[in-house]
């Protein structure tokens, strides 16, 4: 069997590995160039340390900054087109979805999955071992069904000092009728392995820069999986797939792609490649774009629709005591109490991350604090003490709000072209009242938690800031979490979904679209572990069909 995988990112690297291990000849076509060697040094000298900053970019395969926003709200989640994809820059937080997340439509919000948690559970386990996840099964069982006797491949990472400080106050307390409990967050970051698991890379040493670079290679990236590819997997970088071709019966026959050498121009040559099966793994937005450009798989008119993210709310405060932020991973625990339950029918549920990198993301600390104190006239020892005292006590809460699948939130093809002459993705994005009610409830929960902690709340959202809005008279703001999904949605009928339960396009028996784009709901979990579980399930299906 000859398979072409489009995209050597998170999902594509996993699928290629399984296919290669099972006798397929696999060609992986990757739009981006090889990663640059100097990413760590670029990170250090970048003024704004945003996720894509350190990485190599090419004119021919632009990353998310070439999106065109046309809707009422800005879609601000980035993605990276470089070998390894966004999975190079990600944070590495890997919770599973919860059983009720698979049945969002049962409470009248968004869409249901074709099946429930139980079907995916064995693939969650497989994905956790494939990626290398540090977590404690008993701890996870406090809020999630995890199979009896199961062990994660690595023990849970040590909690931060901040986590202990928060847990010692809030565990068992009530906020808005929810009992709080600080729970360890599964992490794709090397810790102490259990017997039978071999570490790949170093143990997390606390560089505190996991987004976007881990100098220690302690965080999982798709490059790890690529190193394990069998000899039957061939990677071609700098190859932008721009069309998938199908014959009259709907069978896919080949893909066309544009190959470039130069990082700075759109100069390219044209090629094509025949295949028995084609797997699109180009990221949710690019998968949709490619299907739309190819005029395939869209008999349901759902391609590009149902675009989701986790609109994130950040709140930030000072603890009464020094907690030592900016040491170790960005978040090692969370509060899971607001993720389900009957409230879900009224307002979007959310997961709370306890943020260990001060006000870095929220307010640009410590540079912003320094500037503030200098402007206020502080100098010398007084300045040093003010910065030390302020920043040492900083922490943040990061709320990930579920966003339901809404066909009006969508990717289409813009009239504007990129340097290769391909349409730029146009994004029409909005937030429903359900999401806004969730953001507001998150803010209330934050108020309650800060009060319990005796924390000094410094959160403020100002009308001149990006992504500011008001809801029920309250100022709010949202941030993009990077969790694009829904754009080639999975379902039980070709009438209203793009792919079936195997991520196979209903309209084309040998065309698959993998990634978060297939997910009918994202729940409140960072989505990549679920995406990886789905990818492994699809790869297994492809292998069994070929036998």
């Amino acid at each position, binding site marked *: 069997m000859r398979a072409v995988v489009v995209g050597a990112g998170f999902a594509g690297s996993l699928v290629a590995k399984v296919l290669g291990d099972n006798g397929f000849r696999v060609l992986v076509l990757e739009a981006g160039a090889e990663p640059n060697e100097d990413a760590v040094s670029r990170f250090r000298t970048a*003024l704004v340390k945003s996720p894509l900053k350190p990485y190599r970019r090419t004119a021919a395969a632009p990353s998310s900054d070439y999106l065109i926003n046309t809707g009422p709200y800005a879609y601000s989640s980035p993605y990276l087109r470089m070998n390894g994809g966004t999975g190079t820059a990600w944070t590495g937080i890997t919770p599973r979805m919860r059983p009720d997340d698979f049945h969002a439509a049962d409470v009248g919000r968004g869409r249901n999955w074709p099946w429930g948690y139980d079907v995916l559970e064995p693939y969650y386990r497989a994905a956790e071992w494939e990626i290398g996840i540090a977590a404690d099964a008993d701890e996870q069982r406090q809020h999630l069904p995890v199979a009896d006797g199961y062990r994660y491949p690595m023990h849970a990472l040590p909690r931060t000092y901040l986590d202990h400080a928060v847990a010692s106050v809030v565990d068992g307390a009530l906020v808005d009728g929810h009992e709080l409990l600080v729970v360890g967050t599964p992490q794709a970051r090397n810790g102490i392995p259990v017997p039978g698991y071999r570490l790949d890379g170093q143990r997390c*040493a606390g560089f505190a820069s996991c987004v976007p670079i881990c100098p220690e290679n302690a965080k999982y990236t798709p490059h790890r999986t690529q190193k394990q590819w069998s000899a039957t997997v061939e990677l071609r970088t700098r190859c932008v797939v721009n069309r998938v071709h199908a014959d009259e019966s709907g069978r896919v026959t080949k893909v066309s792609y544009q190959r470039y050498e130069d990082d700075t121009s759109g100069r390219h040559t044209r090629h094509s490649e025949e295949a028995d099966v084609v797997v699109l793994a180009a990221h949710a937005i690019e998968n949709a774009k490619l299907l739309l450009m190819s005029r395939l798989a869209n008999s349901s008119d759902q391609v590009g629709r149902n675009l989701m993210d986790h609109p994130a709310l950040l709140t930030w405060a000072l603890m009464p005591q020094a907690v030592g932020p900016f040491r170790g991973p960005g978040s090692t625990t969370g509060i899971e109490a607001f993720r389900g339950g009957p409230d879900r029918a009224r307002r979007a549920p959310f997961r709370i991350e306890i943020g260990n990198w001060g006000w870095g993301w929220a307010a640009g600390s410590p540079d912003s604090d320094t500037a503030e104190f*200098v402007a206020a006239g502080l*100098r010398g020892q007084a*300045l040093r003490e003010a910065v030390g005292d302020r920043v*040492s006590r900083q922490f943040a809460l990061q709320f990930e709000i579920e966003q339901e699948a809404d066909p009006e939130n969508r990717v289409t093809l813009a009239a504007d072209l990129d340097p290769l002459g391909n349409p730029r993705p146009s994004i029409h994005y909005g937030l429903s009242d359900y999401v806004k009610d969730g953001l507001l409830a998150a803010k209330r929960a934050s108020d309650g938690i800060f009060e319990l902690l005796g924390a000094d709340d410094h959160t403020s959202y100002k009308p001149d800031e990006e992504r500011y809005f008001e809801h029920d008279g309250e100022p709010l703001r949202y941030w993009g979490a990077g969790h694009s999904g829904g754009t080639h949605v999975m379902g039980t009928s070709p009438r209203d979904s793009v792919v079936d339960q195997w991520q196979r396009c209903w309209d084309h028996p040998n065309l698959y679209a993998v990634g978060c784009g297939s997910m009918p709901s994202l729940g409140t979990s960072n989505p990549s572990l679920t995406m990886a579980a789905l990818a492994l399930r699809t790869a297994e299906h492809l292998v069994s069909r070929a036998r």
Partner: protein
Amino acid sequence: MDAFVELSAELTGFSAEELTSTGLVEQYRALADGASEAEIIQLWYTGVWRGVIPTERAYAEGLAWKAIGVSPPGSAAPGFGSWEQRPRRSAR
């Protein structure tokens, strides 16, 4: 003691020895010729000179981080699990 180091110490609250140990005095002296107080402080505290971080060292030696008692993200590895310990406050 030279005038630039003396002025820098007075503005930043870090001693001449602390400033010298960053290895940045010569580079910053050259850059900061004619700079305002606020610019000199920003350079020492954050490594930013007029919108640019000139070198990796400028970032890694930022005094704001030393005031907190931690290394800037991506510049040093304090070791597995170090984040669980009580923070050490800035050495004064």
